[in-house]
Structures are given as structure tokens and as C-alpha cells.
């Protein structure tokens, strides 16, 4: 085995692209080297370099290939032509079946030839980037940023490969500032070790670990904890070759800003980590990661970063103070000049719609008059912060700022949470006022975009309607809200859309596909909480022995019905007790049980009704089994036969009020 090593050295690669590029490099290299049986393949990535190493065979294995020639029955000139074309003689031929075959040996290809081959270079050059560019001297070749060097070694010897304007060699560079200048690479291990000595940590996981530990240690020294942020940690890992964690102080007066404002500016603009004190409260310090161990211990770097943050936060303070010079209500008329969507009018019109809807939802949730009023007010004001200075500057703070700027705390809380949940890990609003406003916002969005035909397509959902629907579902389920959704929506297409998202969500949580189909195909239920409970209960029920036996009995009845209905047409469910066979009473008992259960279904609409219903169904399997054991459905007397089929139709009907058992599998 030989060691293959490749390093692609370039100007700074955007952090967000590095990991995927490395994964793609791995796929391409392993594919190109497949015939050399690559072992221990590894990739490294960072701001200035992508690298790959593997142990590979010194050459591809020798092998044979059979080239099919003419048919044995073909005229002579055909065979002569084939032999001439392949520079072979008749002795080289073998006959298999109706054809001649020419067995040809494929000579081994050395590893250097594979790596130096055109296919290998082409595969590297075609490594995809989200955006790539040309530069002076690159000609038509493009890369994510200018390429500056390629190290390509087989057991330490350079294999010539040309990537755009760059030819491979054995030279690379260490840290841009701490260890400038080139050095010679001989192996992957030496490369990694020498780079470490030259202040480059090439392993991204190692850098991430160093940063994580550095953050903990630096914060710990001051008795602080770090607000964890995995996305930020990943990004910072891609911005440095040599991470040095430092702590800076926040101007005490700027701690009066809302923490969301401060921390957004810190994260988005500066890539700083926020800190908390021992009590879990925002602390007047930030942590950040420099790319250099400076000769003054980082004093100038810390001072500089503190100054930058002071200026950033001074800008935020400006808007914070200015925005609060007026009441939030006073900004409302300005929504008139903000277009929500060309076909959907202004934000003011939208606010009025949300206000009305929020009031109706609050009523449906059983809120008292005062709380309904609060929901209306919060609905009307929930978009107002879009015209404040702070949200103009930091659109991500929409909602949050309205929450701070509102006078009434309940209104403020409802505004600040009305965009939630913004993603799978985000929480949902709580309380009837906040839920009403958040639901109204999402329902209005769904209804309006459906109205103008802007519904999601297979891949495109530019207005995030799936997320809005999922938001509706999560708010309802996680708060256990009992609302008749169809009535609130007044739009069947939106209702169906939400039910479809509910199906996807419950499937994602591991609910059985067939159970969901059975529940959703049955009663026309629009209480999402109950639908979820029914799915849960049914899944439990059919896993029990009783449930399974009832399901088997149901299937037997449904099969008979299906066959007979194919001949006779659908059967009604009214049975005539006089036609029951009096000798064993099986029909009468089944019928009586079904009548009782149907009556019991009146509690169906109430709390926990479904468990009750399933308990009732549990009592059904015995009379059904007795029926099948003791009664012949297809009796000779047509009237008796018809009556028995009607009894089965009645059984099916009763059970389908719970769920469409025909959809269940297994």
C-alpha cells in the first residue's frame, strides 16, 4: 500500500461551504481511486485548505475482459474484420454459445497513472461550489476563491496534476501571520504535525473542540457560562485556522438594552457568544474567537472588539430610545404604506384581519370578554414593529420589539410570541391570548395565499406555508386547544392542507401510516387534539389481543360484505330482529351490543371520549366471534341472508365511526 495525499490550498473559503466541499471531495476521491482499493480515507477542511489522504494499492489489479465477436455462423469476412480491428489471431478466440469471444488481458495501471490521469483531474476540477469565480490568470477555470497551490503526493513523491492554472507540487504554507512562508510536505502525518507547529489546526473537529473548551475555560475564569449556539460554533470553526478564545466586556450602560437586541447584534454582525452570570442572567461580557495568538496577549484585539461592539450597540440604543418616544399604537397608520404582498394589500389591512380573527379564536378558546379584547388589540398591533427603527435595522427582531414596545404586558407577550414556532426546536406560545394571535397570524397567511393561488409546489414554498400549517398544528396540540378548526378556517382547502401536514408530522413521530389513514378516513373530525388522541388510542388498541381479534373478525365480515355487495350492491344497516335465528341468539346479541355502542357514541364528542369508545369496542369481539362461529351468513332463505348481511353492514358502520378499519394492515 502507498499513501496518497492531496491538499488544495486557496484563498479563504466561506465557512458555510467547507464541510460540504470536504464531503464531496471524499466522495470524488474514493470513486476515482476505487480500483486502487483505498483504505483509511480521510478529509480535512478549514478556511484555506481542503485535504484528502488514503492508503491505496500501488497499481490496479491485472484482469481479463471478454470482447464479444461475430456469431459463429457469420460469414468469414466478419470474423477477419473483427480480428484485424483487435490485432488478434484466430488462436486468441474462444467460442461460447453462438459467439466468438476475444479474451484480452487488461494490464495493471499504476497508482501514479490513475492520479495523473485526465479523469482524476477532471473530477477534481468539477468539484461543485455554491458559487464560484474566475480570477486573474485562471482563464475559464473557476473555483470558490482563487486557488494558490495543490500538493499531490504518492508516498511523498509529487504526482503531476493540473488544476486550472495551478500545477501540483509539494509546498504549502502555515498560518498566514504567525508562520508565513512555504514548507515541504512529505506525508499526511508530517503535513498535519508541521502545520500544527505552524499554528494551523487542520482538523475541523479538533478546532471545534478547542473552541468549545476554550469558551468554557475563558468564561469559567470569570464565573460565567456561555450561551450555547451550535450554528455559531460551526461557523466560527470555519473562520479560523488557529482558534484563540478571548473575553471582552460590554459597556455597562448598554446592558439596559433588551438582551435579544444585544445578542442578535453580537451574533449576526460580530460572531460573538453571549454569556450568563451565575444566576443565569445576561452578563456584561462576550466571548469570541480570534485567529491569532497576538504578541500582546490579545489586549489590542480585545480592545478593538469591545470598541466595535460599543459602536454597534450605540446604534441599537439609538433606535431603542427613538422608537419608544411614541406609543406602539401611534405607529399603526404607517402600516398603510407597507405592502404585504402585491396581491394581498397592505400590512394595515392584514393587521385588521388578524385582529378580527384573533378575537374570534379567543372566543372559541373560551376566553372572557377582557381577554378577547386583548387578543384583538394584540392582533392589530402584532405587525406594527415592522415600521420601527429597530426592526428596520434588524428584521430578525420583528415581534420581539413589538413585545417590548407594547404598553400592556399581555399584549406585549402575545406580540413577541406570535411568530412562534419559527422552527422545529422553537417553542409555541402559551395562554389563550398569545395562542389566539399566533394562530390568527398563521391562519390569515394560509388563507390569503391560498386565495390568490400561491400554494406550495413539490419543491417550492416561498411563503413558508408548510411551516405556517405546522405552526397551527403545534400550537393546538402542544397547548391541548379544543377548537373546531374547520369552522375557524372557513376554507376547506386550507383545512385539508393542515390535515396533510398533521399526517406528515405524526408519521415523522413514528405513528403507523395505516393507523393515521384509518383515523383520518373515518369521521369528519376537525379537532386536532382529538385526532391525535384517536390515532394514539387506536394504535394501542389494535396492539392488544382483544383489538387484534376484533380486527380479524371485522375483516372476515368486511370480506363477506365486499363479495356480496359486488353482486347485490350496498347493504343497508337496518336489521329486522324478527328474522334472527332464535335457536342460538348470536345475531340478537350482536345486534343488541351494536345498538348499545351506537348510543354510547353520544359521549364521543366529550373529553377522552375515544378511550370510552375503544372500551366499548373491546366488548364487541366476543359477540362477533360467536356470530361467525354459530351463524352462516349466506343462508338459504334470501330474506334471512339479506338480514345477516345488513347486520354485518351495521357492524362495519359502527366500527367505521371510530376508524376506517379497512385501512389497517398487518
Amino acid at each position, binding site marked *: 500500500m502507498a499513501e496518497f495525499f492531496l491538499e488544495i490550498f486557496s484563498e*479563504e473559503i*466561506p*465557512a*458555510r461551504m467547507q464541510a460540504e466541499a470536504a464531503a464531496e471531495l471524499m466522495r470524488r476521491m474514493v470513486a476515482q481511486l476505487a480500483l486502487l482499493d483505498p483504505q483509511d480515507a480521510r478529509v480535512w477542511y478549514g*478556511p484555506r485548505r481542503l485535504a484528502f489522504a488514503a492508503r491505496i494499492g500501488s497499481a490496479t489489479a491485472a484482469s481479463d475482459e471478454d470482447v464479444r465477436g461475430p456469431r459463429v455462423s457469420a460469414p468469414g469476412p466478419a470474423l477477419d474484420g473483427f480480428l484485424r480491428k483487435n490485432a488478434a489471431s484466430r488462436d486468441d478466440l474462444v467460442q461460447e454459445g453462438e459467439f466468438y469471444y476475444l479474451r484480452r488481458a487488461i494490464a495493471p495501471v499504476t497508482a501514479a497513472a490513475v492520479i495523473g490521469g485526465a479523469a482524476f483531474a477532471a473530477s477534481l476540477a468539477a468539484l461543485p461550489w455554491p*458559487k*464560484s*469565480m*474566475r*480570477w*486573474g*490568470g*485562471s482563464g475559464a477555470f473557476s473555483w*470558490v*476563491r*482563487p486557488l494558490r497551490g495543490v500538493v499531490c503526493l504518492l508516498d511523498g513523491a509529487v504526482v503531476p496534476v493540473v488544476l486550472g492554472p495551478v500545477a501540483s507540487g509539494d509546498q504549502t504554507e502555515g498560518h*498566514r*501571520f504567525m508562520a508565513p512562508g512555504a514548507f515541504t510536505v512529505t506525508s499526511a502525518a508530517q503535513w498535519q504535525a508541521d502545520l500544527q507547529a505552524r499554528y494551523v489546526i487542520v482538523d475541523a473537529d479538533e478546532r471545534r473542540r478547542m473552541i468549545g473548551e476554550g469558551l468554557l475555560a475563558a468564561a469559567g475564569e470569570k464565573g460565567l457560562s456561555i450561551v450555547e449556539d451550535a450554528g455559531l460554533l460551526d461557523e466560527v470553526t470555519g*473562520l479560523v485556522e488557529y482558534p484563540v478564545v478571548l473575553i471582552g466586556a460590554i459597556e455597562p450602560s448598554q446592558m439596559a438594552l433588551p438582551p435579544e437586541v444585544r445578542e442578535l447584534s453580537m451574533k449576526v454582525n*460580530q460572531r*460573538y457568544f453571549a454569556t450568563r452570570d451565575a444566576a443565569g442572567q445576561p452578563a456584561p461580557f462576550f466571548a*469570541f474567537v*480570534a485567529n*491569532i495568538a*497576538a*504578541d*500582546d496577549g490579545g489586549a*489590542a*484585539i480585545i*480592545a*478593538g*472588539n469591545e*470598541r*466595535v*461592539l*460599543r*459602536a454597534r450597540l*450605540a*446604534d441599537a*440604543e*439609538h433606535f431603542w430610545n427613538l422608537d419608544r*418616544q411614541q406609543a406602539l399604537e401611534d405607529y399603526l397608520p404607517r402600516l398603510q*404604506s407597507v*405592502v*404585504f*404582498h*402585491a396581491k394581498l394589500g397592505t400590512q394595515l389591512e392584514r393587521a385588521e384581519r388578524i385582529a378580527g380573527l384573533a378575537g374570534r379564536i379567543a372566543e372559541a378558546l373560551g376566553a372572557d370578554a377582557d381577554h378577547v379584547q386583548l387578543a384583538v388589540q394584540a392582533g392589530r398591533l402584532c405587525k406594527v414593529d*415592522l*415600521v420601527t427603527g429597530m*426592526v*428596520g435595522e434588524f*428584521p430578525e427582531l*420583528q415581534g420581539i420589539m413589538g413585545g417590548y414596545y407594547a404598553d400592556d404586558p399581555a399584549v406585549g407577550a402575545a406580540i413577541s410570541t406570535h*411568530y412562534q414556532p*419559527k422552527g422545529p426546536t422553537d417553542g409555541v406560545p402559551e395562554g389563550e391570548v398569545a395562542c389566539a394571535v399566533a394562530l390568527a397570524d398563521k391562519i390569515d397567511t394560509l388563507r390569503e395565499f391560498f386565495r390568490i393561488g400561491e400554494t406550495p409546489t413539490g419543491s417550492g414554498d*416561498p*411563503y*413558508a406555508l408548510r*411551516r*405556517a400549517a405546522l405552526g397551527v398544528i403545534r400550537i393546538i396540540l402542544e397547548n391541548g386547544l379544543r377548537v373546531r378548526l374547520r369552522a375557524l378556517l372557513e376554507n376547506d382547502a386550507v383545512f385539508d392542507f393542515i390535515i396533510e401536514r398533521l399526517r406528515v408530522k405524526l408519521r415523522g413521530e413514528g405513528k403507523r401510516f395505516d393507523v393515521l389513514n384509518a383515523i383520518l378516513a373515518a369521521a369528519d373530525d376537525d379537532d386536532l387534539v382529538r385526532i391525535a388522541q384517536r390515532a394514539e388510542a387506536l394504535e394501542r388498541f389494535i396492539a392488544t389481543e382483544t383489538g387484534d381479534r376484533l380486527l380479524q373478525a371485522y375483516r372476515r365480515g368486511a370480506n363477506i360484505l365486499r363479495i356480496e355487495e359486488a353482486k347485490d350492491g350496498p347493504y343497508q344497516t337496518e336489521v329486522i330482529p324478527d328474522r334472527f335465528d332464535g335457536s342460538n341468539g348470536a345475531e340478537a346479541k350482536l345486534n343488541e351490543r351494536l345498538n348499545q355502542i351506537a348510543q354510547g357514541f353520544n359521549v364521543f364528542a366529550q373529553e377522552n371520549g375515544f378511550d370510552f369508545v375503544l372500551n366499548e369496542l373491546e366488548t364487541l369481539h366476543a359477540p362477533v366471534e360467536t356470530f361467525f362461529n354459530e351463524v352462516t351468513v349466506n343462508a338459504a332463505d334470501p330474506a334471512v341472508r339479506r338480514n345477516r348481511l345488513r347486520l354485518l353492514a351495521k357492524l362495519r358502520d359502527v366500527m367505521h365511526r371510530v376508524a376506517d378499519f379497512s385501512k389497517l394492515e398487518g
Partner: protein
Amino acid sequence: MVHCENAFPYVKIHQHGFKHASMADTNDTPIASALSFQDIILTLHRFWARQGCVILQPYDMEMGAGTFHPATTLRALGGEPWRAAYVQPSRRPSDGRYGENPNRLQHYYQYQVIIKPSPADAQDLLLASYRAIGLDPKRHDFRFVEDDWESPTLGAWGLGWEIWCDGMEVGQFTYFQQVGGIAVDLPSFEMTYGLERLAMYVQGVENVYSLRFNDAPAGQGVTYGDVFLRAEREYSAHNFEFADTDMLIRHFGDAERECAALVGRGLALPAYDYCIKASHLFNLLDARRVISVAERASYIGRVRTLAKACAEAWVAGEAA
């Protein structure tokens, strides 16, 4: 995925009359040993002159950024090598704050460098230029942070970075890929320094008006505020309150027509002047908030159409 709310432009409101809290109580004294504002410019001139750049003077028209200077926009096109550096006053009418915000100006200076084709050592040159004005990369934390540059009005884009020094953006570095809707033949290296911000960092001041403009005996020095504070106040009032919008709309139409007419005669440079004019008139109208969201896109499209026509005329003239 685009969040619904963010998909729509918000209306940015321009407010004034608010005294910035931290302005009064900051002891904002420039570091004595740091270069003055004008010495930073002179140093950059010397630095880039040594790299073979022609040192041009500012273009004599109002423009939003140094990129608009024909020495960058038009010279980035075609197959001729080109190296230039210059200071360009940049006007952003919407960014005016009546002289009351320590970080925002409606008129500021950009230092602009263009080298075509981009040299292999562009990053090193750039870092050396920072060293020349007193920012030592061994002591500060210099970073190249992804920044895709795009100018919708110029029909131009490029890839590059923001240059960060200790978390502060001290410049923009772009490899031009397209200008005036035309893919460039020879990609240029373009560097833009925001001079005020850079000088504030070098001098260690937190208010732009505290910048030391020149070096002079005690008591005779001039600050940035001495030179520009009154202008910021007056232009902010002009940009936001008093610019005659009917006249501006009229002038926009005139400039648009004149540009098209000159392009028709193959006079790329005079035509491009009117494109620059139209762009600035649009910026003024935008600051006066008389352009609706829908109109805004249309105005930008109209300027882009002019820029493309000028770029095509320029390339045609070079080839002739």
C-alpha cells in the same frame, strides 16, 4: 427558505432630532501617534503608487460608491490591463443623520483600488497596505469573511470578502465577475476602504467628528467635524426634507434620455456620466421617500439598463 415577513421590503424610517446618548460622555481623544485622516490617504496613495497604480483624483460627480467611478466600472471591462487608486467622495443620502450619529454620514470617503487582472498576491498587498497605516497583522486579528458583492444598479457582481480587523469591517475585497451585465474578460481585484471608519479605528475614536484630520501644532489642528459637521446637517435637511422631488423626477427623466442618446452616438464616457447622475437622483428620491416599493425596483431597473448600455458602448469603443 424565505420567511414570509422578511420577503417584503420594510419601510426604513429616517429619524432625527435625537441626541445620541454616548456622544456627550465619551472622552474621544485620538491616539497621538496614529496617522491623521489625511496622512492615511497620503500613505495609501504612496503604497498603491508603488504597486504601479495611477493615482487618480475623485470623479467630479455625485455617486454612491467609488465603484461608480468610470476608472473602475468601465475599465473593469475589456482586455487591457489597468491599475488605479483614488479617493472617491461617496454620497448616500439615506444615511444622513443630521450630524448626530457618531457612525453614519450621508457623505464619506472611499479609497478605491482596482488592479486588472487580479494579481496572485492581492491578499498580501492588501495586508501590507494595512500595515503601512499602522495596523499590524501580528497584533490585530485580520480576517477574510465571505461577502458576495452585487450592485443591482450597475448590473455587476463579484466574490470576495469583508476584511475584518478585530471584528471591525475595514474594507471590502472583490474579484469582479460581471459589470454592466457583461462577464469580464480579465477579472479585476477591487479593494474599497471606508476611510472614516478605518481612520476611527486607527486613531481610536468612537465619534467620526472627533477624527484628527491633519497634524498641526496644538490648538491649530482640524477635526473631521470642523470640516464636515455643518455639511452633514445641511445635506441631511436637503436630502430628507427639502430636495425638490418634482425637479428630481424631471432630472431623472432628462438624464435617462441624454444617456440613451449619447450611447446611440457611441460616446460611452459622457453617456455614463448621465447614468451616474440618474443613479444619484434616484438615491435622493429614495431618501425623500417618494418612491413606492414597486417603483423602486423599476427605477433600479432603469438605471441598470443605462449602465448596461454604457458598458456595451465602452466595450464596442475599445474593440474599434
